[in-house]
């Protein structure tokens, strides 16, 4: 079954690429607008040699990793504060829900004015997107911890710190780790969005640049490289999760 699915998927991708190339070669689609697989390969090669493609990937990757790690730390700490100081938790909860439903890109102009047209703005943008979702996920799991466990701990005269470190964090560990997976996807969305708005380098910049000079080959190459990058990041975080859960 698994093998059959894989084979079908490969055939699907290959036939898509072949038909795309045929349609472009025969002129049934305009390859200036829709590009073609061979054009994308040559453009990518060209970018690699002349346009510092590796450097652009490095910039995007760098911003993503910083925002990802900062996002994990901030959301974990805020969740703990909201849980321990329940008053603050209750006050903040509806605001988080409201901010979460807001399309964060709308805050872009404000962020640029506050933080400047630089990497800082991109990371803030990514944080806005990944932190809110992670806090909601982690905080919700904290407050839904089975009350009987907390009762049991109290029968042992456990302190608040005991309950937090020996129960709340440990029993919700799988949820905390699972939030990394959501976090990495969200971070990449934020970084690309930020790069669209302010950057001088990165894959988001490359795609916008391609659009500005009306070179769709660059745009599509950028998107394909981005797909590869996001898959690799997701794969790494997913394996990190599995490794962390086993411990």
């Amino acid at each position, binding site marked *: 079954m698994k093998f059959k699915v894989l084979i079908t998927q490969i055939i699907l991708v290959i036939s898509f690429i072949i038909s795309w190339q045929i349609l472009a070669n025969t002129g049934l689609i305009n390859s200036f607008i829709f590009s073609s697989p061979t054009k994308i390969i040559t453009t990518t090669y060209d970018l690699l040699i002349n346009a510092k493609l590796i450097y652009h990937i490095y910039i995007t990757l760098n911003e993503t990793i910083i925002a990802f790690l900062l996002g994990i730390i901030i959301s974990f700490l805020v969740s703990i504060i909201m849980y321990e100081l329940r008053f603050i938790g209750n006050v903040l909860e509806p605001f988080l829900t409201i901010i979460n439903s807001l399309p964060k890109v709308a805050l872009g102009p404000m962020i640029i004015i506050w933080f400047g047209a630089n990497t800082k703005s991109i990371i803030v943008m990514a944080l806005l997107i990944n932190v809110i979702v992670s806090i909601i996920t982690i905080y919700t799991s904290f407050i839904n911890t*089975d009350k*009987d*466990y907390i*009762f*049991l*701990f*109290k*029968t*042992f*005269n*456990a302190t608040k710190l*005991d309950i937090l470190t*020996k*129960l709340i964090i*440990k*029993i919700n*560990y799988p949820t905390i780790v699972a939030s990394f997976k959501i976090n990495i996807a969200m971070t990449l969305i934020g970084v690309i969005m930020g790069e669209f708005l302010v950057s001088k380098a990165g894959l988001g910049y490359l795609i916008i640049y391609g659009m500005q000079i009306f070179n769709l080959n660059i745009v599509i190459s950028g998107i394909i490289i981005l797909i590869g990058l996001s898959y690799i990041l997701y794969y790494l975080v997913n394996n990190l999760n599995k490794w962390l859960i086993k411990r």
Partner: protein
Amino acid sequence: MILTIKDLTKQYHLKNNDITVLENICLTVNEHEVIAILGTSGCGKSTLLSIISSLLNYDSGTIKYKDHFNYGYMLQKDMLLPYLTVKENCLLGLRIKKQINEEKLKQLDDLLIKYHLKNYEDSYPDNLSGGMRQRVALIRTILLDPDLYLLDEPFSALDYQNKKMLLNDIKKLIDEKHQSMIIVTHDVNEAISLANRIIILSNKPAHIIKEITLDNPDIDYLTLVESYIKDEV
């Protein structure tokens, strides 16, 4: 004397009105005594245990404890932590109370052997049967060496045989160590087979309607207790 409760009243203060849960409860628990508290579900039996264990405050009355009073609480469910091994689950209470020492580790070893869990000490609770899990919870409580066991409808998730076996184990243990126990239950047979004294609580607001000391083998306590409970239902 382990503890004495005098005129204890507990209310829950809600937005619009106050609900009295326990009213004028008077109760003395002596050394080496098993008390069963019977009452309909939701009458406030568990609330009483929470108050005795100081996890819930009360509105009026007094509770006096013996010096260095130490209790062990067993909930309806085993509440084993899924991320700790059997051994670590057994040691949880001691670890939090910072009371682990060589002697306790030796006692743990003996208990694991006694309850046929030695081969599972490094397993996780997920791999154990319901009865085994409850025995782990029991060891966790025994290791605290309490003056008073507080059992809130214990082992209610278990089948009859397993439940009876565990309750007998506890009874034997208490006899050996001259400890005391309060067991909250709605099972009259269970109460009679375990207790020296039975306290029957009324419906909300719960007060003690009858206290029966089981010291005369000629009396049919089952019929006696049931007659009081029937009145209440």
